[in-house]
């Protein structure tokens, strides 16, 4: 892999809810501890090369959205660093947003919530670059027009309010707003999840067109395996805050190594395969407040052995461009049945 532009190094993000004064007083008397800690992201290391689109896939509670917010600097990581070409994305660890880099821009899931309902779309797009002096004042209008056209809208739409647009059109406006900042990295958080299938295809096509034209680098966060397969070069699968597997998209889909990845593929209904017999993953997704000890997937894993309950699996690299965190790939699970590696 060529020089990574984005480096996520040992990043953890924990949210702690401390009890109020009364409850903590009771805690002191009774020796209880009511402090709740959510391990949203747990020791994640990833990198993205220039021009690469990295997909981050997982179910709810896996930490993919928190990951996106750490990368775009909205959340300061509890541990670890996120650097863009060697510079931290958040220059201020006290969460002072004005110190954020302008070079990472985010596109949100719900275009009905991500545009200020009381601002014209032209203002929405031009605001950032104008304030940061990225465009000379007299060129702003021209730039807004060309951005709107670039995302497949008419330049004349600049004077309209967001509620006059459909969901797909709004998402295009959100993309134009992000592009206006001339970012080095785009973070797309479930950017097509709330769109209708036919509109989703339009927006995905737009994304791929812009990618070709502008040589975009992106973090594509999604729960939709077929969308990720279609647009991403490389995919990282997350489960309960940890990356369990990374691989180039085609290799991952051809041969998943982690039992969770395999099970996930097995439970997704696909078109054109006819009436399916479902092989869903057993059990529920555990709470990130009290993740299972050892490998977080072991209570649901059909291949789990004693070692999986005790030891957190390391991320190992079975081949050059793949990595997987599973004892099966790293000396076995401690039982005869599971030891296939």
């Amino acid at each position, binding site marked *: 892999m060529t020089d990574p532009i984005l480096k996520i190094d040992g990043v953890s993000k924990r949210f702690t809810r401390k009890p109020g004064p009364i409850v903590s007083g009771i805690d002191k008397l009774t020796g209880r501890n009511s402090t709740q800690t959510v391990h949203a992201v747990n020791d994640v290391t990833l990198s993205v090369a220039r021009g690469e689109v990295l997909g981050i896939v997982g179910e709810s509670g896996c930490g993919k959205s928190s990951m996106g917010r750490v990368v775009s600097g*909205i959340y300061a990581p509890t541990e670890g660093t996120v650097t863009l070409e060697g510079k931290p994305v958040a220059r201020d660890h006290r969460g002072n947003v004005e110190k954020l880099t302008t070079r990472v821009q985010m596109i949100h899931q719900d275009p009905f919530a*991500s545009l200020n309902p009381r601002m014209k779309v032209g203002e929405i797009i031009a*605001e950032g670059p104008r304030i940061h002096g990225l465009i000379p004042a007299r060129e702003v209008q021209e730039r807004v027009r060309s951005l709107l056209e670039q995302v497949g809208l008419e330049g004349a739409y600049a004077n309209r309010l967001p509620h006059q*647009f*459909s969901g797909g059109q709004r998402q295009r406006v959100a993309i134009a707003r992000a592009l206006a900042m001339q970012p080095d990295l785009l973070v797309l958080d479930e950017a097509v999840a709330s769109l209708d299938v036919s509109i989703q295809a339009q927006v995905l096509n737009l994304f791929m067109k812009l990618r070709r034209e502008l040589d975009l680098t992106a973090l594509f966060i999604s729960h939709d395996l077929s969308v990720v397969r279609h647009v991403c070069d490389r995919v990282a699968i997350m489960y309960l805050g940890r990356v369990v597997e990374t691989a180039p998209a085609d290799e991952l889909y051809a041969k998943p190594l982690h039992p969770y990845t395999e099970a996930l593929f097995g439970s997704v209904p696909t078109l054109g395969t006819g009436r399916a017999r479902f092989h869903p993953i057993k059990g529920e997704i555990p709470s990130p407040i009290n993740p299972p000890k050892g490998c977080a997937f072991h209570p649901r894993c059909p291949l789990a052995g004693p070692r999986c309950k005790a030891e957190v699996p390391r991320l190992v690299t079975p081949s050059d461009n793949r990595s997987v965190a599973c004892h099966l790939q790293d000396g076995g699970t401690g039982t005869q049945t599971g030891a296939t590696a």
Partner: protein
Amino acid sequence: MSEIIAENIAAVPSAPPVETRAKRLRNFWSDFRESWVAVGALTVIAVLLFLSFGAPLVSPQDPYDMAMLDWLDAFLRPGTEGSGGYTHLLGTDNAGRDMLSAIFYGLRTSFVIGLSAGACALLVGIVVGLTAAYFGGRIEALLMRIVDLQLSMPAILLALVLVAMLGQGIGQIILALVVAQYAYFARTTHGAAKVERGKDYIEAARSTPLPTHRVLFKHLLPNVLPPLIVVATVQVASAIALEATLSFLGVGLPLTEPSLGSLISNGFKYIHSDRYWLSIYPGLALMVTVVAINLVGDQVRKVLDPRNSR
């Protein structure tokens, strides 16, 4: 639930129509118009505003001008002609003041106090509420505790104490009302801003990043205004009523600068001697004003309620 569905159906435009501010205003008006009570109330307010701010033009007498008053005209019954050569429609008071003129001028004072106290309280409340909601943490806890503390005691009590400390006069009364009332605005702003603060467009603005003051005033504030407009109308009415109460209790404005409250207070002394018009008419004026403003506020709330949109 069908309403939601209907709204979704109507909200999928293929080519967005141009919608100007004027058109939105027209839509607002066409919704507002649906209640004839509210339209009536709005008309009443308009008439009252005209009569009060045009008082020097429309009233037969200047009640501030002591030289115009004649002791011989004192306690004239409504409809009697006085020494000025014109009929006192609502009679005169103990100083020979024409009640109709006094009410017009009094209404003006009440409106000035109500509107400026409402506006200042709105401003202070917005700053406090937005700051608390946006920054959160200790700032929020501290500011909102103070607000809660204030909301837990009657506004009139607080205003009484303040006026007692500050002394009499229009400026002092406005200050007292602002201190007593900003808490309502702060609470509403805080609640609405807390909801908006969690929406993606604020996160998008923050992560761009835009300067904090811009996120606060350009993005957050315009979206918390609608509920504040409703609170503002109600609070203007209650400021007018509060001022009247203070004046009635004798700590507000002196009779030389008559407000509705001081007129009522003055007339109240004579209510048992059959000179009802001294207090009843200013009282009626106060009631009509407050009720009209509240009716308009009610309808504005209905129109701005997103659940009500079709």
